């Protein structure tokens, strides 16, 4: 049984004069993987970044519409963005490990949210690294620089760092695009495990990946959500001609 986690209503985003999204409606179900696909510049990453309000960092960006997390409107004047981002974690395209040790990377989030006790932090670090399938590879060198890990390990470390804050939703912006095939398949396995506890929204360029790991897929084109459906439906029986053209590789 699916439960609604995020509901987007008429989301429009403008970068100065350019309109990047033309009113996106989408229902994102809890404990499911929702994939956003489409050609470069179609607005899928922009939409992802509206969910944790990260677009606001770019000067000249304006967002209209509303997104509800459960029933909370996240584009509310009184909403604390910091609290929102605690609930909605994000994994970026380029593994963005901080220039510090593996341990400190994971402990960073809990620390800024006020956990100071070393024993408690260590517990969170271990739990998060285990949940990100990284513990066995790094438990003997938690204090070495995170930058020495491989790309795939760095990406899982970033996921562990997100898990340490205990979010409800995890946003992933092309998390596998910088990884080799083996690291990618490990990451996909991890995503399938994570959806037991988290709601995942993933932007991907790779349609096979979307088909493999997601339950729902949204196809974006030129700032519009052209089609949104269960992944098995959308890939087998696309309703829109443009979706069909895209997934059969006629453009993009």
């Amino acid at each position: 049984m699916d439960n609604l986690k995020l509901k987007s209503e008429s989301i429009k985003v403008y970068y100065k004069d350019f309109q990047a999204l033309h009113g996106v409606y989408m229902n994102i179900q809890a404990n499911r993987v929702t994939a956003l696909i489409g050609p470069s510049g179609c607005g899928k990453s922009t939409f992802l970044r509206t969910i944790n309000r990260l677009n606001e960092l770019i000067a000249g960006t304006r967002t209209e519409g509303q997104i509800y997390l459960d029933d909370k409107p996240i584009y509310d004047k009184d909403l604390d963005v910091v609290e929102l981002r605690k609930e909605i974690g994000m994994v970026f395209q380029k593994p963005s490990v901080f220039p510090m040790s593996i341990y400190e990377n994971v402990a960073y989030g809990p620390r800024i949210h006020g956990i100071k006790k070393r024993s408690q932090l260590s517990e969170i670090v271990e739990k998060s690294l285990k949940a990100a399938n990284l513990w066995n590879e790094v438990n003997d060198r938690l204090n070495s620089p995170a930058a020495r890990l491989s790309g795939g390990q760095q990406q899982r470390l970033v996921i562990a760092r997100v898990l340490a804050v205990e979010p409800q939703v995890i946003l992933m912006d092309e998390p596998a695009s910088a990884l080799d095939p083996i690291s990618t398949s490990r990451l996909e396995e991890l995503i399938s495990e994570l959806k037991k506890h988290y709601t995942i929204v993933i932007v991907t360029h790779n349609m096979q990946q979307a088909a493999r790991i997601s339950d729902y897929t949204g196809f974006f084109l030129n700032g519009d959500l052209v089609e949104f459906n269960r992944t098995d439906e959308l890939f087998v029986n696309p309703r829109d001609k443009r979706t069909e053209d895209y997934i059969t590789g006629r453009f993009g």
Partner: protein
Amino acid sequence: MDKYAGNSLTAGALRYRSESPKKAGGWLGSGSRQMETGIEFLLKLSAFIGILAIILISLFIFAQGVPLIFKIGWLDFIFSLKWSPSQGSYGIGAMLVGTLVLTISSLAWAVPLGISTAVFMAEIAPARIGSILGRMIELLAGIPSVVFGFFGLIIVVPFIRNYLGGNGMSVLAGAIILGIMILPTIISISRDSILAVPKEYKEGSLALGATHMQSIKGVILPAAKSGIITAVILGMGRAIGETMAVVMVTGNSTMIPGSMLDPLRTMTSNIVLEMGYAAGDHQAALFATGAVLFVFIVILNLVVSLSIKEGKNYAE
């Protein structure tokens, strides 16, 4: 053209003359080949002259100064507080302390102020204002030191004399002027290193629910650490080496200052004040002062390169 394969500077510099360096010989005749050899020789010669000049000056300083250091005993030379050339006693202890005191007291206020300014310009001010401020700060770095010294002499020294006591020529006046002079170095290098922090770090931190200030303190400043340390050490190098402005506002007495309102003399001041009339051992003692300064700066540079290496360990 194979012989130029390893010399990209020569090949690159001439590419505009000969569409493709591979063709240069055959295409434009042997004249161009000769010219290339000639330019390569000139480049080698310039490098040789530049490096030779530095080596000769260093050798000269040490050759002039070191015998005197050993004649007096290096411990005595460095730590003795008695500098009175007329009686043949050469101890630069007070000057060494003077340099240290002045450097530390100017860094003490210029470093926190400079880094905070850099953070403001790179992170908080809108990008356009940040870059306008940056250009102004760089302009400040171009003002000759004698102008700063003159400002100190006319404004800062009388202010201290009238409101804080003493005759105004003091550690405090020197620290204020020297601090202002090293601020541009600290600000612009710190700012550059903060701007060079990948935006993924900041976004990653904000996406975890950190505030802007938490992200600056927790991720951005640590990531920019090696650049900021470089900025501080370059500022320190400038503070140690600065002479003109310091001579003009610090009073130059050869005693260890007892308070911020007392005068002091730095090693550089010592050289510039006495070089006009020094001869024999006295002159050698000034060169020896220079040699000590030289070693000081070399140690500083070593610290810089080590700290940068340390930083890279984590970043790369």
